[in-house]
């Protein structure tokens, strides 16, 4: 019988990465004034915005990737 090997859907990792991502957003926006003031001091403080977007892109990027996977949107298999 031709059965397709079914991959387990990444439910858990989507939820975990999603939760971390949301908490980062909540954290940033609940301290809006402090964050925007500190991040725009220039000089060495440049590390803050650059580091933050790297962090967000890894966490939120992983969430997005898992989410698309979960929805069954994947690249064409050659």
């Amino acid at each position, binding site marked *: 019988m031709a059965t397709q090997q079914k991959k387990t859907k990444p439910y858990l990792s989507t939820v975990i990465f999603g939760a971390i991502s949301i908490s980062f957003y909540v954290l940033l926006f609940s301290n809006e004034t402090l964050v925007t*003031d500190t991040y*725009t001091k220039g000089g060495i403080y*440049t590390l803050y915005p*650059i580091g933050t977007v790297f962090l967000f892109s890894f966490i939120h*990027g992983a969430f997005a990737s898992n989410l698309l996977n979960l929805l069954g949107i994947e690249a064409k298999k050659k």
Partner: protein
Amino acid sequence: MKRFVLAVLFSLFLLPLASVVFAAGGAGPDKSMLKGVFTEINEAAHTAVLQKDGTEEFKNLIIGEHVKVESLRLGKKVLVSLDHNAGENVIKDVSIMFMDMTLKKLFALLTVGLVGGILSGFIGSGGAFVLTPAMMSLGAPGAVAVASNMCHKFPKAMIGTYKRWKYGQVDVKLAATMATTAIIGVQIGVQIQKHILNKWGNDGSNLYVSAVFVVVLILVGCYVALDAYKLAKGGKDTPEQASTLAMAMQKINIPPMMNFKVAKVRISAWVTIPVGLLTGMLAATIAVGGFIGVPGMIYVIGASAMVASATELGIAFVMGLWGSIQWGLSGLIDIRLSVLLLATSLIGVQLGALGTTYVKDYVIKITMAATMLIVAVSRGALLPGYLAKFGLVDQLAPSTAVFLESLSFWALVAALGTAGLISTGAMVKGMLADRKETKLHIVAEADRA
């Protein structure tokens, strides 16, 4: 190996040059701009005291004639531009650095982020031309909009590059070569801009930027559209067959020759370098280097649209990171805008990237040509205004000026929408066809069993 070491040494040699380069998206922050908080405003005397950001330094400023005193606010971080023609320390313009975030603005940012992301993943560049004006119309000062957009662009490009690298579409060596030469190109572009600004002022500079924008986009856009039309009409997908120009270029046998394995091209560095330089120069002039980088890699170097658009993402990452550091040093990144755009664009860019595996090469070209031509209309609409300011044509009627300005903005929105629709439509069609095929395949297998 010897060539690789030479390439690394060459890049190291160029690095000091790169340190003088400002953001890839333009000439970088204006030096005459002050950032700080007003501690005192004297309405009667028309003066104000500004504490410069991050310092204990206080500066006495004179409120310029055209500045409304009511618009100055105490205790809020502001960007102040000075009018050097009116005298020393005269305020020309004040803008509040951090706009108040409302629900409407939040949704607007999330929407443009998503479409910009899809476009970026699909054609390698996209979004910057509309994201910056969109943020400005939401209330962000120009410099903050450019900086925050760039700070969202490079992580998006990074994720996009990673995805498309996994699909075997990114030529890392080509990306590295193009990025290095593009950084030098940016420097040349910035120098030209400065020269024009000094000689013909702000109006001359605006006219120059718009003229370059329109001419380049129409010429290149039409060429790409024509090529895509021919490919679509023939119904064939021939990414392996390079253009006549690229074939001729590949025959030039002047060392050092470079081998690009993923792009399947062997070409002289004397051809690759000018393409990179032009990409950088255009990036410094119109802030969208990809519009020349991708067609350059396709028609001059001879890569497929698939590889060229994927490689462009790698270039965008390097240049975007570099630009973001420059804008960050000046403290102009509004991180809220960057992360809100990222919230949806990181989904969009992955969607666009995987979409390329379902479409034929020419679909990418069609999307790119459509975007370029509509953006050209947007910029073209501003040309009469700039020509009038420069005294080359009669002054425009106020109603005409307003109409042209709104036409320009909505054309940008239309460009983003059209490109989003073409890429999403092609992607969905490809996916459905693929699923149908897989289903038929399974049924056939089952029948055979």
